[in-house]
């Protein structure tokens, strides 16, 4: 067993309250295997980026350093070099291959469709709010659980809430459960995006786009509409709240009761 402070340190490593911090440079913490894969791919590519950047900077600086009449009065005159030209063609190709392998592996794994998701949720984009439908559960009059999700205006925010990100009705989903999101739009193009879940799916009128999500931990995840859709495009955020299965069941029951009343 570790001291209590150790657990606090590990938990705190992962969760500043909202997965974000001021002046943040990198990605938000991943909450799905797909987002973790995206972050890992980025790290793989960044290794080659750093290698090439340092190498090129070194050659540039050394060329400037040596170009000095006092220390090197007789400059070289290199016209061509077949060997080096072959090397600097093959070497980048090998680097590209090392980048392509994990990239295609992630791409094809993202395309795999979950055969039997436990929950299916429809997200319908409007100007300028989202509507969510949980058609798996029907109330007594066969109407599915449906609600709108509007941004909370700045004047109505409570202390601690996030400006331009909070909504009145969150998308409550069960954690550690395969979800199927079906995204569409009722008017113009929108895009349903939640960075920490690694999800971005265009909402196209007249079309159903599908994406699968598996949220690995309970928490609240924020996103924003990601396709220009008019004057309030920046004011139709998305909030996904992942809860345990029991809390999810209670929430669905409550919602269905409220809707049927």
């Amino acid at each position: 067993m570790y001291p209590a402070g150790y657990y606090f340190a590990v938990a705190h490593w992962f969760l500043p309250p909202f997965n974000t911090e001021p002046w943040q440079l990198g990605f938000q913490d991943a909450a799905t295997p797909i987002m973790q894969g995206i972050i890992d791919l980025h790290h793989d590519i960044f290794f080659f980026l750093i290698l090439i950047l340092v190498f090129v900077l070194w050659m540039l600086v050394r060329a400037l350093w040596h170009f000095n009449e006092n220390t090197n009065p007789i400059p070289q005159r290199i016209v061509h070099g077949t060997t080096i030209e072959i090397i600097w063609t093959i070497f980048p190709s090998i680097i590209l291959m090392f980048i392509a392998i994990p990239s295609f592996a992630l791409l094809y794994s993202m395309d795999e469709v979950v055969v039997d998701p436990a929950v299916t949720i429809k997200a319908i984009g409007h100007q300028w709010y989202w509507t969510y439908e949980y058609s798996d559960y029907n109330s007594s009059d066969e109407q599915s659980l449906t609600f709108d999700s509007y941004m909370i205006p700045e004047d109505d925010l409570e202390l601690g809430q996030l400006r331009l990100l909070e909504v009145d009705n969150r998308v409550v989903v069960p954690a550690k459960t395969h979800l199927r999101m079906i995204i569409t739009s009722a008017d113009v193009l929108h895009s349903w995006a939640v960075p920490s879940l690694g999800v971005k799916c265009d909402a196209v009128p007249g079309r159903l786009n599908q994406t699968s999500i598996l949220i690995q931990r309970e928490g609240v995840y924020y996103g924003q509409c990601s396709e220009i859709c008019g004057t309030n495009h920046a004011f139709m955020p998305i909030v996904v709240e992942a809860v345990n299965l029991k809390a999810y069941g209670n929430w669905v029951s409550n919602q269905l009761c409220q809707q049927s009343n």
Partner: protein
Amino acid sequence: MSTSPGKVASQAEAAQAYMKKGVGRKPPSLVMEIIYGISLGMFAGYLWKMHHWNNQRRTRQFYDMLDKGLISTVVDEPGED
């Protein structure tokens, strides 16, 4: 800087000039500079990889502890079950 034709020479001629007359420094070796550059690049890349492996280790630790119930992402609100 003077660039008159008399002073322009190939790598081999520059080295010979150095050996004969002791003029200037030994000219830089392109191959060695490339080796130095690649080594520095690999070292910088290794530092980045260490950061990446550290992140992976911390993530793995986090989820292990979460699965064992040692930590939680849910704040216990007073008055809840």
